[in-house]
């Protein structure tokens, strides 16, 4: 009896969280007049809405832009984040403690205070409407550095000292010895960075006006509010589906890593 109730609630939850996405995908394939219905199937399924989206906005180019920006950001955050994290955890240098304090302080600054000045900096540098504006301000992340530092603290110093005595440079120690031991934290940082970069909208809206440089969520946002969708519900749902499908596919393969990474960001927050 108790178990039946639990399963009933769990399935109710599954419907609550997953059904809207199924409805979205179905709606993107249904003819305009049938979208309002609750059902997922229609005998008149069509790809008209997708054709409308593809002809009205350069969403393929936007997908490529998003990919370039997210991959560049993620590579940079992992590379530089692990370097700083390693220096803080395992290298003695004057200012080590002070720098760590500074990084913790950085994490406490609400982004609202630096947002407008950051935008003005982009204008002054002439970086608006370039990939640089989308990538540079997120190339490093204080939070990722603290994740790397935390993880590297747990790697025995004896191992690193042994490598030093063997004549390994610190660069080689980090990339050939520490990195292979650090897969969990690298995966966590990579997923967190990629996801937040992929889903970011506010910053691209601020620094990019040129359509051929827009990211995917940005162009879908402007498509939705800019009237280009001409209030065709089907094409709105098709745009939303195109936007979410890459993430849903990646998530269905690596959901364990996604959940662990994103929950760990909450645990340490």
């Amino acid at each position, binding site marked *: 009896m108790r178990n039946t109730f639990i399963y009933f609630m769990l399935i109710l939850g599954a419907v*609550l*969280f997953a059904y809207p996405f199924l409805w979205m995908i179905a709606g993107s394939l249904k003819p305009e007049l049938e979208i309002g219905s609750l059902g997922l199937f229609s005998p008149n399924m069509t790809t008209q809405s997708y054709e409308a989206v593809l002809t009205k906005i350069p969403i393929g180019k936007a997908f490529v832009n998003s990919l370039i920006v997210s991959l560049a950001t993620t590579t940079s955050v992992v590379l530089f984040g692990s370097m700083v994290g390693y220096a803080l955890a395992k290298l003695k240098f004057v200012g080590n403690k002070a720098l760590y304090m500074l990084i913790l302080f950085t994490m406490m600054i609400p982004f609202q205070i630096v947002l407008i000045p950051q935008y003005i900096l982009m204008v002054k540098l002439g970086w608006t409407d370039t990939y640089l504006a989308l990538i540079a301000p997120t190339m490093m992340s204080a939070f990722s550095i603290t994740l790397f530092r935390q993880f590297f603290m747990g790697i025995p110093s004896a191992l690193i000292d042994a490598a030093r*005595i063997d004549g390994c440079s*610190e660069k080689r120690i980090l990339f050939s010895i520490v990195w292979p031991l650090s897969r969990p934290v690298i995966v966590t940082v990579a997923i967190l960075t990629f996801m937040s970069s992929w889903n970011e909208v506010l910053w691209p809206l601020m620094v990019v006006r040129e359509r051929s440089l827009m990211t995917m969520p940005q162009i879908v946002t402007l498509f939705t509010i800019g009237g280009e969708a001409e209030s065709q519900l089907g094409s709105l749902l098709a745009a939303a589906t195109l936007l979410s499908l890459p993430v849903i596919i990646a998530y269905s393969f690596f959901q364990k890593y996604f959940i662990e990474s994103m929950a760990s960001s909450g*645990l340490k927050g």
Partner: protein
Amino acid sequence: MINLRDIIHRAKHSDRTGYWFVLPYVIFFLAFVAYPLFFSFILIFHRWNIVTPMEWIGLKNFARLLQDPLFFKSLVNTLTFLLIHIPLQIVVALMFALLLNTKVKLRGFFRALYFLPVVVSGVAVTILWQQLYSYDYGVLNTLLRSIGLSPVPWLIDSSWAMPSVAIMATWKNVGIYIVLFLVGLQNIPAELYEAASLDGATRLRQFRHITLPMLNPTVVVIIVLSTIGGFSLFIEPYVLTGGGPMQSTLSGMLYIYNQAFYFNHMGYAATLGFVFALVILVVVLVQRKVVETEPT
């Protein structure tokens, strides 16, 4: 034989490596954190449309802010959002975490489904919910009508619009907090429950006196993260309602954006950002104090 001088040399060498390793971050910090922070302290005393030269106006931006009904409106809107979003988030997350913390089959499957909205772009989620909330054709009102209730003016009534945004945001984010509560639940030592059972405590009393107090740290995390999220609310009202109807979903971030990019009031937008940042810091500090010192 290990050469002592060699080791000293290496130690000195590795010192320098430390500087090389942190140098990129220091440059990044100076350019994209320190400089903007410094520049915001200049901007808040100026009127500037980014084209003509900056004009020093002293504290006029702050004087204006104190008389700006839209600033207070956006602050009240954010608080309205948080007052609905936070309790809803905690109750729903705790409920599903408790359901998942039993010996049921397919736990991982259910957990993965509940987490799905977290990973999907907020823009896609908002487009989807705009359709669900539609007054005439939306799924939600269709459901309400089918069980004989009257439809709800989700997005078109100014007293419903912000609660609608809060419900949508809860649906999107609750997956993270389900997982956090699950971790919290699994960290509670089983001995506590065994001891309580031996003392004859009912399940309800165990929940009240063991489970809830032990989850307190998780609740603090949820409250703080949701608050920061609430003050950053932008894309949801921007896409869903454009801040309307009657400014009822104008969030702080949306107001800053409008001031900066529709009116080119860079100085005033920076002032708004400055004040909102202070409000966030104060609110979060107070929350931590209150929740952590609350007797359990």
